[in-house]
Structure formats: C-alpha cells, structure tokens
C-alpha cells in the first residue's frame, strides 16, 4: 500500500478511484509485404494503477511492454480498448483530452540521449514543457532551475550545457527533471536505468524513490531486471508476447509465483553466489516471434507443463480487483480447464 496520500487538489475521483484503468488495450502492427500478418505487440491488456503506488511491468524483449507504455500516453494509438485516468475516459467527449492527459502523465525513456534535443541547452529542454503548457518564459526557466536542483544537478553549472556534454547518468537525471517540470501526477518510466552502470543505477533509483515521496507521484516502472522491479514496485504485471500472464502484489509474485513463466523468469536470475550456481536452465529456447504467436496459451511452446488444452484454449486471467488480488492466466490455476494438473499447481 502507498504509505501516505496527502489530498491532492487535482484529485477528481477520490482516493479509492484508481489513477489509471486500462481495459482490453490492443495494438497490432501490420507487417509490410506479408499479406495480412501483424505483430501482436499488445493483445488485450487490462490493469489498474492505484494512486500513489508503483506498478512494475516485466517481460522479455518483444513482449510488448514498451508499446504498452506508449499506448498509455497515446504516443501510439491503440487499435481498441479504453483508458480511464482518475475517473475520466481518455480521448472521448466528456472525458479528458489527450493533451491534458499528457500534462498529468509524463514519461522517461531508456535512451537518455535520443530523448533530449541535441541542439538545446538542457535548461531549455527542461523549461520547454512548462512553457508550451502556458507558463511565462521566466516562470518556466524558474521551474527548470528548481527541477535541475531537485534531481541533483547544479543549475548554474549544468543548465547551459548540451546533452552531449553530460554522462549517461546526468542525462537521465535531466530527463527525469524534464518529465517532472510539468508537475505530472503519474510518471511512466520505461527502462530508465537499463543503460546505466550499476553504481549510477543505484543513484538514479534512490532519486526516483525520493522524488516519488516529494511530489506524491504514481509510477509505472517498466524493466527487464526483476531485482530492480522488486526493489521499487508495489505490484507487478508480468507480460509474455503481448499478454498479461500474471499480476499481483510484489511479495506474492516473488514468493509464490503462480505462472510457470513467472517462475522461470525468477529462476533465471543469476544467484550472486558462486556456491549456488544455476545448474539447469529453467526453460529452454527463446521467446517466439510475436508475428504469428503460438495458439492458445502463448507460453505453451516453452512450458514444461503444456498439455493439449494449452494449445487449443486461451487461458483467462481471472477476475481481480483492488490491491490484494494475485491472478495468473494459466490453465493449471483453473479447476475446470481440463488440465491434468489443474488445482495442484
């Protein structure tokens, strides 16, 4: 549970209203020259993010986690599905407009260099957001100085510099300052520390934690590194080939993972202890191509427990509500599925 929630004047739906609800989001990218094949990047993804929490999203490359992040801000338009931000549907009449959503939800990307304008000193990059959202130039500059200070960069020293004059860690700090300059309520962090060295990664993680408290933020934290997700998140959503396979509170996922894929992911983490090395690979093979994904349960081609039902029928994720629920899309969890291990696993 989020520790403290001061009442935010921008709060519309009340504390019980989730910050963000995503319902059945779908995005297929057509593949040119292949007839009507498509990459099923995100295929029917639903989840909620509560106010003040950090939702971690994990999965291997190509599982659709970055596409999902972009769908949430309409940086990529979903084919279908619904987004509700603090009780207001996004991009529909009577709802919240996309530009207003982007004022309240900001994003930090993995590649810290390509997400900054190389021709702009960083103080202007940070001031740009508030400026286009109607702040006066002086005000925007003032906000930029303040934000740079809060992310640990001296504004008079770093403000006039250009992105290429900064190290990777410093650039990522600038990106965080840029995201926070518009005073968002929620920040989507798409692999924000993956490109950083370990000693710098720790600094940025500490910074993200401190800022979340200071600004009363809600985070969506996307990463392939389960250790980092475990450290930072309250709940975790596990994706595989465009679908949610498991979602639940952090302790539950790490201590009692339900889905065989989640278990394999957890078991694939290096031990950090040479006396307890991994002797057998938890699963074999690579994630399949998201063009033409496997039928039924998409994990059945790599799953040690796969049976006929897994090839033919899509497992449902089950129903879930609130913070406490922990569900997985696996036939072994469903007593009526016909899987021989159903109810045992």
């Amino acid at each position: 549970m989020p520790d403290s929630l001061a009442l935010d004047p921008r709060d519309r739906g009340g504390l019980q209203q989730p910050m963000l609800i995503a319902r059945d989001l779908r995005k297929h990218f057509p593949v040119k020259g292949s007839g009507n094949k498509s990459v099923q990047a995100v295929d029917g993804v639903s989840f909620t993010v509560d106010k003040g929490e950090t939702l971690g999203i994990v999965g291997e490359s190509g599982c659709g986690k970055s596409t999902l992040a972009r769908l949430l801000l309409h940086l990529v338009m979903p084919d279908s599905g619904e987004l509700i931000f603090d009780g207001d549907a996004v991009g529909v009449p009577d709802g919240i407009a996309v530009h207003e959503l982007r004022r309240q939800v900001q994003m930090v990307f993995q590649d810290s260099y390509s997400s900054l304008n190389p021709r702009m000193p960083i103080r202007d990059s940070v001031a740009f957001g508030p400026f286009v959202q109607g702040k006066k130039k002086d005000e925007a500059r003032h906000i930029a100085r303040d934000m740079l200070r809060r992310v640990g960069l001296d504004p008079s020293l770093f403000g006039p510099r250009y992105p290429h004059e900064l190290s990777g860690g410093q650039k990522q700090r600038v990106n965080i300052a840029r995201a926070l300059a518009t005073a968002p309520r929620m920040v989507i962090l798409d692999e924000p520390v993956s490109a950083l060295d370990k000693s710098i990664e720790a600094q940025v993680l500490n910074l993200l934690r401190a800022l979340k408290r200071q600004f009363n933020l809600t985070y969506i934290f996307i990463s392939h590194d389960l250790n980092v997700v475990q450290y930072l998140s309250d709940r975790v959503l596990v994706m595989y080939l465009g679908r949610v396979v498991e979602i639940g509170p952090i302790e539950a996922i790490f201590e009692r993972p339900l889905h065989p894929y989640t278990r394999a992911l957890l078991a694939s983490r290096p031990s950090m202890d040479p006396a307890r090395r991994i002797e057998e690979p938890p699963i074999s093979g690579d994630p399949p191509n998201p063009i033409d994904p496997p039928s039924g349960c998409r994990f059945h081609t790599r799953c040690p427990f796969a049976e006929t039902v897994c090839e033919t029928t899509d497992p449902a994720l089950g129903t879930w509500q609130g913070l406490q629920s922990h569900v997985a899309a696996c036939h072994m969890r469903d007593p009526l599925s016909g899987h021989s291990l159903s109810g045992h696993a």
Partner: protein
Amino acid sequence: MSRRATCVTRSPATAYLGTPKMALEDAAPLAEVHDLNVRFVTREATVHAVNGVSFSVQPGEVLCILGESGSGKTVTLRALMRLLPPRRTRIEGSVRVDGQDVLAMSSRDLRDLRGGLVAMIFQEPMTALDPVYTVGQQIGETVRRHTGCDRRTARARALELLELVRIPSAERRLDAYPHELSGGLRQRAMIAMALSCDPRLLLADEPTTALDATVQVQVLILLRRLQRELGMGMIFVTHDLGVASEIADTVAVMYAGRIVESGPVAQVLSAPAHPYTAGLLASTVHGQPRERDIDAIPGSPPDMRRLPRGCSFAPRCARRIAQCRLAVPEPRFPEPGRMAACLVVAGVRAS
C-alpha cells in the same frame, strides 16, 4: 588441479612472488599479460584506456574481468588478440599467449592466432556475423582457413559444432542466414564459430548482455559446460556481478584502466577488499530492503583523458586518506591468491 591467477597492477616482476606457492605449482600460464598500457592518441586528446594491467590465466581457468563502461575491460581483452586500430593505438607491456609474444607478431602470424589458438565471441552476434552468408558457410570458412580441408569436411565440422552448442534441428540451421535465427540461437552460432578450430583460449566480451534473462542463463550454462569439456581457458568480460558469480573461477575488478582487486570469485564477492568492489556490490540491486536507499557510490568515474593523480577511485571513496592522492597504490596481498590495490587494505606488500 590448480586454478589460480595472479592479477596485479603496476607491479614489478617480483610481485608474483607475493604468493610463493604459485611458482612451484603452476606450469606455464596459457595467457600472461604484464604491465599492459593502452593509449588512444588523437589530435585533441590522449585517452589512457589501460594503465599497467597484469594478470595470467591458466589452462582450464575462467577469469572474469569485471568493470563498468569505460573501465578498460574490453580494450584489455582486445589487446590480447591485437584487435585495436593500429594507427591510433599505443600498446606497451607484454602479452603472451601460450608462450608467444602477441605484440611482436607479424600480421600473418596474427591471422593464424586469431580463430586458431585464440577465439573471441562478442556482445552483438548480429554485427559479429556476416549477414550475407549462411551460418554454415561462415563456420566452414573459418575451418577451411585454419585446417585447409575441403568444403564437404568443413560443412560436416560445422554441423558437428552446431550440435555441440545444442542448436535444435542443426542440419536445417546450417543453411539459415543470421537474421533468420533468434537472439539466443545467433549467439550459439557465434560460439560454434569461435570453437571451430579448438581454441585453447576463448575471449568473451559480454556475450550474454544483449540476451533476455531466460536466454542469458542458458548461454551461460552452455559456455560453462563447453569450457569444462574442452578444457579451454576463458577470459570473460562483464559488467554484471551476477554473471561473474555464475561463470568465473577468478575475477579481476577494473576501474579507470587498472585492476583494483583480484582473487577467487567466491572470496571477492563475499568479502571484497577494495572499497570500489564493496561499493559495486552494495549498489547492485539484489533483494535489499525496500524501505531503505541503496548504498550507491557517489559521483561518477573519472575522465580517461585526465586521470586524477594517485588512486583513481579516491575522489569517490568513503575510506580515502591523504596518501591516496599522492601515488597509485601498490598492490597488496591480503591473503594468498588475492590482490587489492588500496592503501587501507591490510596485507603483505609487493616489495
């Protein structure tokens, strides 16, 4: 069998006597690097990428060079095969592989060395493999270059190798182009190519970094098995402590172009001697309590064009003393087989 490496920074030859048993136990090391210095010279600046690195690797031993980006770990690895751009690079020191002086080799001898006695695998198989030749053709070419056999024999050997690295339906994969393979299979194909001429020393430059977690562990286990079965020596460069703990016998931790600590992997990871190693371990996220900040190392690594005087880590070090800034610390040996180049480490000095 003894699996021990000595790794020392800026040491006189006598440093090896710091662990006296060594000289008796170990026959000729497979690879021996002594006081290696690598500088990249351009008109604007000189980058001091590697500064006085010494280590040795025994046959059948896995040495992990651990370090962050810019620490000189990849440059050290490439110097072992002289894969650095010759015109801009100044290499000093000595590099011997199987008794041969690599730095004195003619380009003809180098071509025999590369892929023969010493082979290398890279981080990005997609850029290391040639996109316009099939996997079978590329492996076959290497085999024919080094053994002079005919195409058919080379193809048979390629098939054997793909099976060795456990590529499923190997026969079919021989005729696949690199882009037709998944990331994990591509990396296996590159390993197969590296092993094609039975190298005695395998150099691995972050070969699992670009792979997904579930695939990374498969490739690590494969490399470990192959290394053991074929009795190769291996130098494995990585930034990931977890990967090192899975594969290394000994580790050498690099910072700003110097080896700051070395020793058996279990001891270095469980009781690091150098403050940098300790800091790296503490700042790597692995199950720390969620309600506390991670013990991050403050600051960032130095500019390799303008290295600070004395210990390069001193500006970030919580345990620094005034003498740290005066000279590069001599290696000390806290216990046999271990080295740390740090003034605050208790231990036998080199001289």
